[in-house]
């Protein structure tokens, strides 16, 4: 039963990543692209957690934790660059 749930979740997350990619290319403003990238990171974390469940391997959570940290820093750095024209002032 968990196997079917995992297949369904893989399909949902792939579709979600495709929708995010559409918003990333479409824009129209730069803020929309930042939101799309932020959401892509969230969905990628969910995908990594799901791969960990599918393979029954707990090591994948370290990768998910790292991506959670780096994704947040990336979003804030992008916003800072748009707001101030510089990241580290």
């Amino acid at each position, binding site marked *: 039963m*968990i196997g079917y*749930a995992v297949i369904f979740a893989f399909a949902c*997350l792939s579709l979600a990543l495709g929708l995010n990619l559409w918003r990333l290319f479409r824009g129209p403003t730069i*803020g929309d692209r930042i939101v799309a990238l*932020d959401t892509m990171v*969230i*969905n990628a974390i969910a995908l990594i957690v799901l791969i960990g469940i599918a393979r029954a391997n707990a090591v994948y*959570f370290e990768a998910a934790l790292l991506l959670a940290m780096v994704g947040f820093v990336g979003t804030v750095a992008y*916003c800072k660059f748009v707001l101030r024209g510089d990241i580290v*002032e």
Partner: protein
Amino acid sequence: MIALVAEIVVSLMIVAGASFALIGSWGLVRLPTLMERLHGPTKATTLGLGGMLVGSVLFFRLDQNLWSAHELLITLFLFITAPIAANMIAKVHLHSLRAGDPPDNAGPAGTPPPPPGAADWATYEAPHRDTPVATSET
């Protein structure tokens, strides 16, 4: 019997989490402007990823008989950082509207009205005297 119940709960958590992630991304595509689009992915962050992580905690308890707290760390970190990222993106939106974006990008609610009192929104103002930002730029 308990194993069967646990398996059903894990499956439900995974399905619910993936559904909310999909709904959040659909909201990102469907909603009209940036201020509304910020609303959709919050569902993917909290309910979607939260459900997926709770499902994986229960799955590893069921499958390998171990409790792992890593998932809760991820949840905690995301719950702390999501509002900060949303605040920064909203500031980008306000400043791009102020810098002359087409006004229809303001969305149904329009640009936010100025706050009561003499001061403008804090993000529009120059740094005040003797604050850390002002003193670091001298």
